[in-house]
Every structure is written in structure tokens, then in C-alpha cells.
């Protein structure tokens, strides 16, 4: 795969044809392989407590579903996470007594597959700790009485409809809020939320959720208008937004997880441009991680945590600087285009330009350090060379920024550098954390 990869075409948005499709297909094939391994393990080991669940049938049906149904499910963020935990059971690294609960949750994906193929199916399922059942991979979930928390229930699908029953109680059908037809907001499904540990989850009522969705929907609409190829990639890859709490009222809190690919965690802001910036930033990290699956960009063995980052006050690694430079090249590029296209008040424009000015020097610094210290693979070399080219183009786009604001950006960068970097080197002055 590395031989066919360019790397340069991964730096800014290029749309979803060519290498994007190839890597997506590889991911789906890898996920299918892992599911087959899980099925084989289940047939061999038959963990206690799963008799009567027909899990083997559920897995076989998902694998046999048409590609248009199967592949999006295999690539769904929660499935990514479920598979990453399953690998532990298959390898014998997780306690077998946990297998019953873990594998029983596969029925959420089975319900989704049955719904999407309009198949008639009756499934034994396990409800979440809040008494819900999620057809994970679709917008649908059912709410049952709180007393049903963690209990077994029955799920029926027919003709694309979902019914969940716990004894006599019927579940109320609900839908995840949709920002676009394929990008939804999720804050309840445990299969999605379990790896989200870096930040707290938002605990909202309906009106707060509606406000979050409205700002993001508008942000995505502008992203589509300003950078269609990047929007197409983002829409193809991202399936879920998980709302985060922002207790210290930072401008924005965001995160993404390697075992939850296709999900992005984000706090609310009424500032649409800030949300766009955060979406692009986090998506760029996910995009490079997608590329890492095919090529490491950096030759292995260069994890020394001793480098200066203009974004941080602690030592960083080469990989982190590569990701940071890439994300901000795309953010700067986007924001400069928005500034060109749209009207802002003088004050708002100056504020945005001030941020961009500082980020331009940050990108320059990070790219320089990567160039000085990194040994890259051939794909990585092309990736880096294109990053320099795109950064140079943003410098040209930034000629509109008043000289005084550029100087202020330079001054703040130099001040930070003087405090945290060793002379003009890329070494952090304080040592590894």
C-alpha cells in the first residue's frame, strides 16, 4: 500500500476519490477480518452466559450484508471501539468472565444491520445502565423504564422498524439529532461513550442540545461552501459528534480517540467559526491517523520527548509536531478563505486575523523542527514537502493581514519561544515531562 500512496495528496482536502476510497476500503476489510476472527473465537470458546443469544448468527448476517450496509457499520466509531476490546478477548488478554457482557452488546450492531437491510429479526439484547437500547450504527434508539437498566430485553425489526420490549413495557422510539444526513450527535450510547475519558461529557437538556446542533449545522454548511473537498472527506469519515462539558469555559474543548475513529468530541460554543476551526483541527488528526494505518510517515524509533512546541509549555515528540503543523495549516487556510469571502465587523476581523497571524508562526516553527530532526519515510517526505508548500500559500493569503497584527503574532511567538526553547534549536528547555 505504501508504494501506491503519494502522501502529498493527504495534506489538504482533495475529496473522497482515489487514495481516500482505497484506504477506506482497506479499513473496512481489516474490520471484517477482525470480526471473522471474533466469530471464530466465539465458535471455539462459547463463553458462559451467552447461550440463546444467537450471536454467531448476528455476526454472520452482518458480514453477509450488502457492502452499502456492511461497510458503514464496520467503520462506525462504536464498532471500532468494540473491535478493539474484542481483540483482547481473542488474544486471551481480557478476563473471560467479562466476555458475556461485551459480546452481548454486539446485538446493537446486529439490530442496526437488520434495520438497514429491512430484515425481520428477533434479537435478545442487553439494555444500557440507563435502560436504553441503541441500534448502534443508525440514529435509532429505544428508551425503557429506568427499572430496566442493565436488563435483558427483546428487540424486533421488520420492514425497517425497530421495537424493543422489556416484559410488557414497550420502548419509546427516539432518534439521534442529525447535523447532516450522515453525521449525528450522540451522548447516550455506552458503546460510543466508553472510551471518552479525556474530558467530561455534556449533561444537557433538550434546548441546550438544540442550540449545540444549530451552531454546528450552520458551521458545517459554511465548511461545505468554503472548502468542499475537505467537507466531503470530513462527511465521509465522521459519523458522530459527542458533546463535551467545558467547566472552565475555555474557548473550546475537543478530543478524538484512536479506537473511536469516526467520532469527534467537542464542547459547545456559540462562535460558529471557532467550532469550524475545532472540527477541522480534530478531523485533521483523525485524517493523519487514517494515513498512519498505511504508512507511519516517521520512521520508527523517533519518539524522544524533548522538542519545543509553540503550542505547549512541555516537551513534545516529533509525531505531535507533525500532527499539530498539519492541523493548523488546514485551519489557517480555511479561516483565511472565510475572511476573504465574508463580511466581518472591523473588530471581529482583527480578532480573527490576530489568531491566524500567531498560528502562521506556530506552523513555521513546528514544520522547521520536523524538517530539522525527523527521518521520514518516502510518503512522509512528500507529505512534509507539501505541508511546506501549503504553508507558503497561506503566507500569501495572509498578505491582507495588517502588518501590525503580524508583528504582534511574531512577538508573542518569539516571547513563548524564548521562554521554552533552547536557543534557536527545536529542543524544549525544560526536559521531558
Amino acid at each position: 500500500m505504501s508504494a501506491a500512496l503519494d502522501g502529498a495528496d493527504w495534506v489538504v482536502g482533495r475529496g473522497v476519490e482515489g487514495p481516500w476510497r482505497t484506504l477506506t476500503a482497506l479499513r473496512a476489510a481489516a474490520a471484517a477480518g477482525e470480526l471473522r476472527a471474533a466469530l471464530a473465537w466465539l465458535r471455539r470458546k462459547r463463553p458462559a452466559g451467552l447461550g440463546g443469544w444467537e450471536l454467531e448468527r448476528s455476526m454472520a448476517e452482518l458480514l453477509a450484508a450488502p457492502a452499502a450496509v456492511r461497510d458503514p457499520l464496520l467503520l462506525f466509531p462504536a464498532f471500532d471501539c468494540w473491535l478493539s476490546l474484542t481483540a483482547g478477548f481473542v488474544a486471551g488478554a481480557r478476563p473471560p468472565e467479562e466476555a458475556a457482557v461485551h459480546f452481548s452488546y454486539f446485538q446493537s450492531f446486529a439490530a442496526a444491520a437488520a434495520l438497514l437491510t429491512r430484515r425481520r429479526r428477533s434479537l435478545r439484547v442487553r439494555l444500557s445502565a440507563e435502560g436504553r437500547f441503541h441500534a448502534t450504527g443508525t440514529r435509532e434508539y429505544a428508551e425503557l423504564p429506568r427499572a430496566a437498566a442493565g436488563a435483558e430485553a427483546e428487540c424486533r425489526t421488520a420492514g425497517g422498524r425497530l421495537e424493543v420490549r422489556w416484559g410488557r413495557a414497550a420502548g419509546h422510539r427516539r432518534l439521534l439529532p442529525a447535523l447532516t444526513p450522515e453525521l449525528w450527535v450522540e451522548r447516550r450510547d455506552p458503546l460510543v461513550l466508553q472510551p471518552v475519558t479525556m474530558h467530561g461529557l455534556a449533561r444537557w437538556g433538550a434546548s441546550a442540545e438544540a442550540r449545540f446542533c444549530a451552531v454546528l449545522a450552520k458551521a458545517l454548511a459554511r465548511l461545505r461552501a468554503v472548502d468542499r473537498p475537505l467537507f466531503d472527506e470530513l462527511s465521509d469519515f465522521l459519523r458522530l459528534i459527542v458533546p463535551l462539558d467545558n467547566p472552565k469555559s475555555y474557548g473550546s474543548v475537543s478530543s478524538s480517540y484512536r479506537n473511536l475513529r469516526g467520532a469527534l468530541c467537542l464542547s459547545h460554543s456559540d462562535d460558529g467559526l471557532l467550532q469550524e476551526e475545532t472540527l477541522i483541527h480534530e478531523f485533521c488528526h483523525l485524517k493523519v491517523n487514517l494515513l498512519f494505518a498505511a504508512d507511519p510517515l516517521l520512521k520508527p524509533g523517533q519518539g524522544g520527548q524533548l522538542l519545543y512546541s509553540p503550542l505547549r509549555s512541555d516537551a513534545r515528540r516529533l509525531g505531535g509536531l507533525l500532527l499539530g503543523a498539519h492541523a493548523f495549516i488546514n485551519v489557517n487556510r480555511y479561516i483565511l478563505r472565510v475572511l476573504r469571502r465574508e463580511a466581518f465587523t472591523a473588530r471581529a476581523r482583527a480578532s480573527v486575523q490576530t489568531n491566524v497571524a500567531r498560528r502562521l508562526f506556530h506552523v513555521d516553527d513546528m514544520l522547521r523542527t520536523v524538517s530539522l530532526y525527523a527521518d521520514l519515510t518516502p510518503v512522509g517526505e512528500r507529505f512534509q514537502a507539501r505541508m511546506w508548500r501549503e504553508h507558503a500559500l497561506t503566507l500569501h493569503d495572509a498578505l491582507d493581514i495588517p502588518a501590525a497584527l503580524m508583528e504582534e503574532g511574531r512577538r508573542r511567538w518569539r516571547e513563548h519561544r524564548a521562554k521554552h526553547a533552547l536557543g534557536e534549536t527545536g529542543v524544549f528547555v525544560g526536559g521531558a515531562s
Partner: protein
Amino acid sequence: MNALEWSGLSAAAPRWRRLAEGLGDGLEAVFDDAGRAGLGLTGGDARRWRLWSAALAAEGLAAPRAPAVRAWVFLDGGRAREAWSLGSGGELLRLSPGAKPERGRVSDRRVGGTREPALDALLADFAGLHPLSALSLCLDRLEARLTEPAPWPLFARCDAAKPFAAQGAAWARRLGARAVSGFALGRGRMEIFVQ
């Protein structure tokens, strides 16, 4: 400027400064991750080894009679605390004040052949960046020599240099762009050889 001058030893080690002045070329600096510095001698004629042995003897370290292929000494406060000597037949000698010399025979290893998977992986990754000309094991000490010495900044970025990362800036100041020609791992310590 010879290794002794830039290694920072000269002020604390007048005996070794005089030795270095007498030896001239062929010296490299040696450091361990605890900050101990020392001198290394590579190759040379009988006269150089006599001077070296005499310096060790003055510190109470019994040097071998035959000239060594390589030798190095760690100094603490100007005094020799530990010395090593590699003979032409592959015998390694470890010398400590007041203790009998430890002897061992060096055995060559290949990358991937240490029988410790994590160490094999570390060395394989390192060799992908900086090819190794030799890897050997003796007296619980694994020594690697680089085919081409690596400038310190490029050595420091490697996973293998992790023991030095906690004082990354200090080592960067001390070594600048000087080149690392080899390193050794053993007994919970890492040593580097710097030209």
C-alpha cells in the same frame, strides 16, 4: 579543542587534563545518563597505553598490561570511579577502585538477537535510523557502535536515547552537534561515546 576540554572535565581533573594533553588525538568523551563524564581512548601505540595505564594506576585501578583496543574511564569529582578496557582478543575488563577486576569475553550479537523482544525492537528501530556496525554483549553490558556517528540532536530524538531525555536541554547545551559513535546499556544505566 579536545574531548577533555569540551567534556567539562578539565577543571576537576587536572591529572586527566595532563593526560589528554599528552595523548592528543584519539580521545572521545564518555557520558552516562546519571551525568558522570569520562574519557575514552581508541587505538594507539604502546606509548599512549602506557600513559593511560599510568593514569589509571595513580587512581588505584590496575590496568591490563597489554595495550587495549579501546578503554574508557568514568570520573567523579576528578577521581576515576570506574574504568573499562577492551582487549584485542575480545576480553573486557571492568575496573573499580578497591575491587578485583571483573573479566568477561565479548560475544557478538546481531540486531534482533538479544532474546529480549522489547530490546530487539528498540535496536531494530534505532538501526533503521542509524545503522550499527557492531553489537556485542559482555558482563551484563550491551554495546552498540554506529556505522556513521550520529550528531547528538539526531541521536537524542531516538527512543533509544530516552534515559537522557529528562535533561534534554542540558545535554543539548553540553554536546551541541557533536557526534555519538556508540552507546551501551547495562545495569540500569546507559553510556554514550561522543566524538
